[in-house]
């Protein structure tokens, strides 16, 4: 079974530039999560979806961040006008059964550096 796939693996930007991260969850998993992991810290939930619906986006840092999952499968996380404080690894995870088991399956992450 294929795991969670993320791209790109690495991105380096100047402040003010935009970037999009893409995630392909495990087939059949209805719940998809985006986490931000700053260096030497634990992952922090940004947003999660059940199918195409946003369940909770209250932790998205600002209106510079947006996430969509239009068909309930793949998802895109976009950062507009990036800042140095956005430097982190962005992890995508998926889960079956609405996430009720609590077990998440993570991708390898997309590491963002903002200069």
């Amino acid at each position, binding site marked *: 079974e294929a795991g969670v796939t993320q791209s790109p693996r690495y991105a380096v930007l100047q402040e003010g530039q935009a970037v999009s991260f893409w995630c392909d969850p495990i087939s059949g998993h209805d719940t998809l999560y985006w986490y931000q992991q700053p260096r*030497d810290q*634990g992952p*922090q*939930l940004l947003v999660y979806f059940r199918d195409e619906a946003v369940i909770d986006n209250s932790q998205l840092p600002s209106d510079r961040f947006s996430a969509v999952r239009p068909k309930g499968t793949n998802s895109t996380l976009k950062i507009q006008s990036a800042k140095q404080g956005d430097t982190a690894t962005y992890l995508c995870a998926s889960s079956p059964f609405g996430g009720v088991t609590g077990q998440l399956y993570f991708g*390898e*992450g997309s590491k963002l550096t903002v200069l």
Partner: protein
Amino acid sequence: AQSVTQPDARVTVSEGASLQLRCKYSSSVTPYLFWYVQYPRQGLQLLLKYYSGDPVVQGVNGFEAEFSKSNSSFHLRKASVHWSDSAVYFCSNNYAQGLTFGLGTRVSVFP
């Protein structure tokens, strides 16, 4: 707010020695509890999970964890570590909003 605390940022152990990583959770109800491991340049992988029942749960690669309601703890143990166990270990709990993670404990195993 629900949270988990990992008081040890770094642990260094000799290969073959035992390992214990501490985790405390705060909750008015017993949460689902997890330990995840993150190897360099990789995503997080599940080691073990606790939902209810037997407070000692077995995981992969010889890891086990013990849940204590009285101490609000979920400590991870391994009897004999290998150099390949060098990684960052995260304790987490699950509520309606997905997993909440601790800051992690970086484990370094030296020969």
